[in-house]
């Protein structure tokens, strides 16, 4: 096992373990902090894929921006520490069956398929210039539409969250 493979498994384990803490923890603060490590693990995976730009973006936007916002949101909410989160499980048996079937199929597919694998680049190439170029040429339309999607999300969030005085 070379160093690269060890690093991959390390980051994969970090991501998976902290993601399960996010989901299973009953304390929202623990969940929020575990999310930090999940994002970090994913950033590590991007680095191993030589996707330098995506890795940095992941760190800056998710870890640096979104997560800090989430943490502030959690902490500024009144009485968050001892809030009683209602979590429960219903329909356990059907859920287990479906999840097992789905997971079994997916693992089976991943095991038996001949994936078309690209040969690794021999050296390291900066990806940011190439991404920038593609975003303004081949991927111009998705790039622009993504901005409309974000605007819709903003307007929608504002509409749902706005508190209105009762019109009387």
């Amino acid at each position: 096992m070379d160093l690269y493979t060890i690093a991959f498994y390390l980051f994969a384990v970090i991501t998976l373990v902290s993601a399960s803490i996010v989901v299973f923890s009953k304390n929202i603060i623990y969940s929020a902090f575990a999310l930090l490590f999940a994002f970090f693990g994913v950033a590590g995976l991007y680095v191993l894929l030589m996707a330098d730009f995506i890795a940095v973006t992941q760190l800056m936007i998710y870890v640096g921006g979104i997560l800090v916002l989430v943490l502030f949101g959690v902490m500024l909410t009144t009485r968050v520490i001892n809030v009683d989160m209602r979590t429960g499980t219903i329909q356990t048996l059907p859920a287990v069956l479906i999840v097992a079937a789905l997971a079994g199929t997916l693992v089976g597919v991943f095991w038996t398929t001949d994936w078309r694998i690209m040969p690794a680049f021999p050296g390291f190439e900066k990806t940011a210039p190439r991404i920038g170029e593609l975003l303004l040429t081949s991927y111009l339309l998705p790039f622009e539409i993504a901005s409309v999607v974000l605007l819709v999300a903003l307007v929608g969030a504002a509409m749902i969250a706005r508190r209105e005085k009762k019109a009387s």
Partner: protein
Amino acid sequence: MVDQALLSLAKFLPEITLAITFCLALLVGVIFRSRPRLSMWVALLGVVVSIALTIREMGITESVFSGMIAVDPFATFFKLIVGSSAIFIFLFSLYSAEVLSTMKRLVEYSSLLVAMTLGMYLMVGATNLLMMVLSIELTGLSSYVLAGYTKEASDSSEASLKYIIYGALSTGLMLYGISILFGLTGGAMDIYAINRALVTSPVNPIALLVASLLIIAGLGYKISAVPFHFWTPDVYEGAPITITAFLSVASKAAGFAMLIRFFKIAFIDSSAVGLPAGIWITLQGFEWNKIIAILSVLTMTLGNLVAVWQNNLKRLLAYSSIAHAGYMLMGLAILSDKGIAAVLIYFVVYMFMNLGAFYVVMLVSNKTGSEDIDSYKGLGFRSPFIGVSMVIFFISLAGLPPTAGFIGKLFIFASLLDAKWIWLAVVGAINSVISLYYYVRVVRNMFLRDPDENSGPLKFSVPEIVLLLLLVVPTLLFGLYYSPIVDFANASARMLGVH
């Protein structure tokens, strides 16, 4: 590259108009704060202009923005369906007590409706997986918010929440399927490139099956096919009626357009030679049309059987719309241009009759505040015109002559029989009979039951009646004079890159 983008812009005017209208409606709302209706008129005008520009694009077959979007007769057809239903929805909204009770949010309502229309315009033309996902998200995000528009009502918030959770799950499944397909084809995002990769070097059929099932889950959610339909009744019941009507027609149309385009281009054997014109065959060892056929049987049967037990008209129409998605899926299973044309014909018809039925439900609920089947008791006597219109819409939904619904079903069944799918046609016919039962149940309440003691006649204003006529007349007219729709649909079944 720059030149190409500029050339693409010229073929992209309807979408650009909608994007500008979206921003303009918001700006107008901010500037003229005291007159929220103004931004609704701006939005309506924008959609009308986009339809006019779409009509100018008729007959063009071209791929724009480096193969992201196809501008072809198929896309144009669906854009017209989506655009016209958007116009109807705006007109409905002008008379909807539910929407007007929250005047302050009218700006967001109008602008998000435009954004949703834009998302659907993109959905019907998308030929790249990235664009497909983005346009589904654009449509989805706007509809989640609009479903929860009357947020004071708890069932509206519930509808919005359910919608977003199911939406997130199904998009997740679809993305997973796309990632498998991406690995199988060696990184193809363009659906033509996917097809080339699959035809030239066969792949593990099970992996391809799993990938396509996951993608069907994402698209099946949009068209509310069983078993991805669980959100439909609750969302349709909780959302404002105008939005429910829009979801049931336009959202479904856009989902169908994407489903048909994706399967017809990515998953057929394009190297096959010597086939009769207008017939295609599946990839070797991967008969996805069987999956679609099973899905259609499940969808129409469950939709119709459950609809029988519904007492809320919105829920009843929700299950009926699930059943209609099942009828239309049959057209795709046939693998012929005739089947696709039949689906297109069905959509024109479905738009008028389904929007009409929802409009009547809205008018009645404006006056009585209820969508329960009991509040329709004696409606035929309290307001004969509304009652008769509803009967026409229901007869059409059930698919009986002389209404347009009959023509829609006729073409679907004719193409099924043509392709020797006898058993599927029989299942479809039995389903139509079941559907007749629950439609007639409402009609019986309207005409054979006496109204409650203390309920007088219902009066409706002239514009409301005119708007209703705009839906009733085509429903009757296209039942008798249908050759224009048929010609138009046959001409529109052509897609970019498929001959």
